[in-house]
């Protein structure tokens, strides 16, 4: 069960904006990531060709989603991977728990997975007395401080090294204060080696699942993902239904786009392709591999031809790095699992516009996210679409909780605007009224708010129509 969300977005934004340390950390980090990506994709022609290919691969996968999932399941099953389906996070959590219980497991080691964040899996397992040890370095840090990821690729990026040094000193017994990254790493390595050694079940996400061969692909640098999927006797992978691709040949371009966009790397240290549990005669690897395929609102998103594009996402996080809003407020202010531009379109669709629709308002529509998206999701268009849905006439549309922000005054204003532009007589009357009243706009309500930091609009005494009539002009 998801925790009830009591989140005042505007208050969180104000708080984040006032936090100088946080803003400095994000400015430094995002600038760095933008530069790395730019250096890697230095050839614009090649990049555009790659993006076109990536978009086509993902669109082809979505266009055949039901049959590809069917094929993935059949091939995984043939390979010995046990496939489970879950409509909701709650169901997925129960599936995980059932597998853990069947092995009497209480210690799990976990590779980074955004779907598991979506499920609030760690909190769920903790309530059942099961340890879910995060092993990605960034995730390890924020687990110590009981925080959620502030970025989908670099989860602890809101912290700088002295903040991390203090966390290690306070939370890991026997650790002296050190700002040396090598020493901090050594502490994490030592602590987690024991956990890998003792882990009874390994949990992971999936970056891509290949229907053609029934293969689960994982991308990582640290080796923790390989540890979690190799050392414990049982491996459980969780994935959203959209993560499937049709064939092996689709893997290299998506991999290239993912690592390049996420961290500016040509390739990560490890690319891990898992096709079966330990086979007869093999000496290591899990004896059981489970794949949990989770819907959690995705099939509803798929049903709308425009919003469907949200599901092209490969979770590289580059839209976060390039977003002027994200850079200034960081990931936590959003108050949802997925922050930044992708979160602005994903969270409202998953959780309902009434609960998360406010995220769609946090955009200047500058277009940067759409320009850098490796699979060309038109994020700004989808943000605008969701803004329309928020003020839709009713809740019968594609997105749950639509129409919640519709208010009478605004509806009347736009109705008036429509009439004024359809009827010449009304238009003339309106123009005359504006000319007469424009200088004396009452500073109340939204006008007062608008003019607090902006100059009030200046309305000419005479309309253009009128001036042309008086001063002459040729109709050419």
């Amino acid at each position, binding site marked *: 069960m998801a925790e009830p969300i009591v989140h005042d977005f505007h208050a969180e934004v104000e708080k984040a904006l006032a936090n100088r340390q946080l803003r400095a950390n994000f400015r430094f*980090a995002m600038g*760095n990531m933008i530069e790395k990506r730019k250096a890697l994709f230095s050839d614009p022609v*090649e990049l555009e*060709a*790659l993006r*076109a*290919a990536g978009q*086509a691969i993902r669109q*082809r996968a*979505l*266009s*055949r*989603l039901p049959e590809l*999932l069917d094929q993935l399941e059949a091939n995984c099953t043939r390979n010995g991977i046990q496939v*489970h*389906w*879950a*409509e909701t996070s709650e*169901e997925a959590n129960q599936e995980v728990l059932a597998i853990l219980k069947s092995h009497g497991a209480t210690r799990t080691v976990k590779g980074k997975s955004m779907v598991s964040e979506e499920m609030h899996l760690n909190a769920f397992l903790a309530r059942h007395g099961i340890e879910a040890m995060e*092993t990605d*370095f960034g995730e390890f840090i924020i687990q110590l401080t009981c925080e959620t990821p502030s970025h989908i690729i*670099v*989860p*602890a*990026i809101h912290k*700088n*090294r002295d903040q991390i040094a203090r966390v290690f000193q306070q939370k890991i017994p026997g650790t002296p204060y050190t700002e040396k990254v*090598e020493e901090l*790493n050594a502490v*994490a*390595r030592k602590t*987690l*080696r024991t956990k*890998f050694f003792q882990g009874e079940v390994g949990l992971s996400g999936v970056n891509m699942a290949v229907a*053609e*061969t*029934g293969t689960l692909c994982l991308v990582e640098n*640290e*080796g*923790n993902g*390989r540890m979690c999927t*190799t*050392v414990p006797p049982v491996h459980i992978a969780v994935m959203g*239904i959209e993560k499937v691709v049709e*064939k092996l*040949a689709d893997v*290299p371009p998506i991999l290239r786009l993912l690592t390049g966009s996420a961290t500016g790397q040509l*390739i990560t*240290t*490890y*690319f891990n392709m*898992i*096709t079966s549990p330990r086979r007869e005669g*093999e000496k*290591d*690897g899990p004896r059981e591999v489970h794949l949990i395929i989770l*819907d959690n609102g995705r*099939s509803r998103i*798929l*049903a709308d031809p425009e919003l469907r594009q949200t599901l092209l996402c490969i979770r590289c996080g580059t839209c976060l790095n390039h977003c002027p809003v994200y850079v200034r407020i960081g990931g936590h202010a959003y108050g949802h699992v997925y922050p930044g531009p992708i979160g602005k379109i994903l969270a409202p669709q998953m959780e309902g516009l009434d609960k998360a629709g406010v995220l769609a308002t946090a955009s200047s529509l500058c277009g940067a996210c759409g320009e850098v998206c490796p699979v060309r999701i038109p994020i700004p268009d989808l943000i605008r679409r969701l803004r329309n849905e928020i003020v839709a006439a009713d809740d019968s549309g594609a997105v749950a909780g639509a129409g919640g922000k519709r208010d009478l005054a605004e509806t009347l204003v736009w109705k008036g605007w429509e009439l004024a532009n359809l009827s010449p007589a009304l238009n003339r009357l309106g123009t005359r009224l504006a000319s007469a009243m424009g200088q004396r706009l009452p500073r109340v309500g939204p006008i007062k708010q608008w003019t607090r930091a902006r100059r009030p609009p200046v309305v000419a005494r005479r309309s253009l129509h009128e001036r042309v009539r008086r001063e002459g002009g040729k109709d050419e």
Partner: protein
Amino acid sequence: MNSQTARERILKRLAASGTEHTAVPDADLPQPPSLNAEERVTRLAAMMEAMRTEVHVVDAADWADTFRQLAREKGWRRVLYGPRGPVASPIEAAWSADDGLLPDLVAYSDSVEAFKADLFETIDAGVTSVRGAVADTGALVLWPDAHEPRLMSLAPPVHVAVLDADRIFNSLGEMMAAEKWADGMPTNALMISGPSKTADIEFTLVFGVHGPKELVVLIRQ
């Protein structure tokens, strides 16, 4: 809760979603430059060295001597190998003339359940063959198997990989197609481009996170 019910409901919703009408544009994949054999070695070595990998181009005839030399210089005490793997015989031969200064050769011959403590705590380096490599991104390709298990390239602090120069492909896509991977994938296929690393603290690159701290590649030609 019932996985089967969930499956049916999800697939039913997907079938009714109209997603089959999603427009799928034609887009040709950008092709990586085609390099000749010598260029592939150079490119691979350069890419991997940039990721702090130690690369040696060695003579196919006496590579095991180079390896023995390396083992002595690095001061390893216990070296893990796969006794029935493709690089076992030359290594055993090179070790047969042990002058007492060579590290112990440890065979990965039991299952991990019996061998885990030894593997995690006492091994200094693991040596494996590799299936091939790709030049464009600079990475080794491993298909661990019963003779050279998965943890050999992960648990020890050093991984030594033995690669034949004629097994370097231009790209992953080319290798997958040439070798018909789609016809049958192994339990675990891996690409490795360097020692394990992280940049999670202020983008400071640190090597040796949870996997090997050092990666040594011997390219035999």
